[in-house]
């Protein structure tokens, strides 16, 4: 039995696959790729497969991770190439290796946000002392939170009349979803701006790639 962390990208049409559907899709990909997955023991046997940080529906990711457990050894390069043969459109396996970081070490994500909003409006929002948004909690209540601190180091540049922002946000316990920024932007401007989200990298608290 061996724990393997696969790094993969999920882009294009694949961004419309929800996290729940992703788990089912990956299980089938593994079977098609004839990856010797380890199955849990017990009444309802299923392969062991976990994801470090679910990606919201509509977001793309360049370096997502998925942990799996193999029943027999298999060279990592072969695992990667077999996955790439079996993946549907929008997925690509980049690397596979034994996991270095524990799942709990994942702390932040680097995002690139492409907003169809002029850069001045984005700068104006970032210049505010606080950016209050309403966030739904797991208990289905709504709480108000200030996302200004999370976006303090955001880099912005104009691009084709829109704005591209690169920002590193907390992931996991104090998760900040980049969608909240768009929510705040539209609340201020009364607009219906859109945003395309690309997650570039998962990081540990020390800023090292989560591998």
């Amino acid at each position: 039995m061996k724990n393997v962390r696969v790094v993969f990208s999920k882009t294009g049409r694949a961004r419309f696959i929800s996290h729940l559907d992703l788990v089912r899709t990956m299980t089938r990909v593994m079977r098609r790729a004839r990856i010797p997955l380890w199955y849990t023991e017990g009444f309802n046997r299923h392969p062991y497969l976990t994801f470090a940080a679910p990606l919201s529906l509509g977001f793309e990711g360049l370096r997502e991770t998925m942990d799996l457990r193999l029943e027999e050894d298999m060279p990592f390069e072969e695992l990667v190439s077999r996955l790439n043969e079996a993946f549907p459109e929008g997925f690509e396996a980049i690397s596979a290796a034994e996991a270095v970081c524990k799942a709990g070490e994942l702390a932040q994500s680097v995002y690139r946000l492409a907003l169809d909003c002029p850069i001045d409006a984005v700068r104006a929002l970032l210049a505010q002392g606080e950016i209050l948004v309403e966030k739904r909690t797991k208990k289905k209540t709504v709480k108000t939170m200030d996302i200004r601190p999370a976006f303090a180091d955001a880099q912005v540049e104009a691009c084709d009349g829109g704005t591209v922002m690169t920002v590193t946000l907390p992931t996991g316990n104090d998760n900040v979803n980049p969608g909240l920024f768009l929510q705040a932007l539209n609340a201020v401007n009364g607009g219906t701006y859109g945003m395309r989200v690309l997650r570039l990298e998962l990081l540990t608290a020390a800023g090292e790639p989560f591998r």
Partner: protein
Amino acid sequence: MIDNNKLENLFLQVQKPSRYTGGELNSVTKERNKVAVRFAFCFPDLYEVGMSHLGMKILYAQFNNEPDVWCERVFTPDADFEALMRQNDIPLFGLESRDPIRDFDFIGFTLQYELCYTSMLNMLDLAGVPLRAADRGDDMPLVVAGGPCVCNPEPIADFVDMFFLGEGEEVDLEVINLYKEHKKNGYSKAAFLRACADIEGVYVPSLYDVSYNEDGTVKCVEPRDGVKPTVRKRIIRDLDLCYYPDYFVVPYTDIVHDRAMSEIFRGCIRGCRFCQAGFIYRPVREKSVDTIDRQSHALCESTGYEEFSLSSLSTSDYTQLEPLLDRLLDWAEKEHTNISLPSLRVDGFSDELVNRLNVLRRAGLTFAPEAGTQRLRDAINKNLTEQEILDTASKAFRGGWTAVKLYFMMGLPTETMEDIEGMAILGQKIVNCFYANPDKPKGKGVTVSMSASCFVPKPFTPFQWEPQTTMQELEEKQKHLVESVHTKKISLSWHDAKTSFLEAVLARGDRRLCRVLEVAHERGFNLDAWSEHFDFNAWLAIFDEVGLNPAFYANRRRDFSEVLPWDHLDYGVSKEFLVSENKKAHEATVTPNCRQACSGCGAACWKEGVCVEKR
């Protein structure tokens, strides 16, 4: 062309967008300029339902197996996405190319149940093509349809250019090939339809004129332009040689039947008198163990599905079931693949086999006694005795099952309140069976779920002349069933009598109903099989306005001599046979199944399958 960015922004505003995005595993993409024929295969219901349908998977793969044909999937968009499509002028598109289907050569519908007719019209409207066949010219796609509803397509005859009767594998490609020829030599829709009308299994409704008697019954159906007076269905003669896909499109989102499916035979030997499938798919033709084994394994490998089911009308009637399961389990167990067996009688199985299947999946056990008493089961020719049901239940309980589902029908011809009470009594006997098992699992109770649907008389069955029980009577019977159940181990559910009434009207209706459907479409009716969309009173109002009495179609007893709206269609089973079966029903006399003896239904004309087996 549809603007992709605009479309994808809409996807983010709807529930389960992966129903509309395409790009699923194994979906087929071709180059637009390298194909001669583009076919939009439409299932007039939501993605979750349509993607579960085996027939669509077979034909999708078979069409795409042709290098110059590109077949794409199209489903009814859910209400949220439809609203956005209409607001943003997005026409109905094929999932694979995202091209508008009004630019395709064919728009094909599979019609599995009558209540999807409004969705068919809504999809044509969303596609931007005129609803009526007569309003679509040479520059419009041809609208074609197949599936079981096509055995009486008259209520939708004005909207569809041609129907394919029976099994589609051969006839669909013949029509497509003829289309390619016509396209090369100067296409006109009229000439093409006339040529198609000479193909066996093709029904072009515009080439048949219907006249009516004063009492509203059909006077006669007259062919025009020298087309064949009777259209006979097509069948596949040898299922081992017939195309079967080695891949399915694997959806991202959860669908109703999310598994691989292996068809093991077509038709049914039983001849239950209420069951349309039991008559229109005759004769029974089996696939060999080798073929099923090979096809099942190939499908599991190409899809990654962790489960597959054996599909047929009555899987326990497969003559080689135990050897087949042995073969399949050989690899399925090793590969962690579950085999699911629907509607099965396990009383004939060895304990070892029951155990092996158990290891893989402990699904619920389902029976369809259909009627509560032996007398009524004899009248409907349901060859299932109470003893068989109890034996199977006992065996399943010994194997560890704790849940049993029972399917019944209400409103069957000759039914009395005693038959209704019989359902409750049978349920109670099964509960008792569970407690009679000395090895029953500790701390676990038994659940018997009984579901009662309302009987709908269908064309090409011995009950095609029977009146449907009125809604009021059905509701009384439902109430009586509730009062007859005295234990909490039995849970009851039933179908809404109102939807069954509309189903009965459309199932045996004539062409005058086209106007009703057209008005229903104008009022925005869609997805009527879903209770949240179904508005019964609004339907009644339309019948009233159009001047048709729905009870004339649903609740009227037809005389054997009456010309039925589907009499010019031929499914191989003779009218004389259906008449004699109807008479036997009223005498509660059974007819042996096809393996016991030939009863001379007429399907032997094809000289295939069970009709030529040694008995």
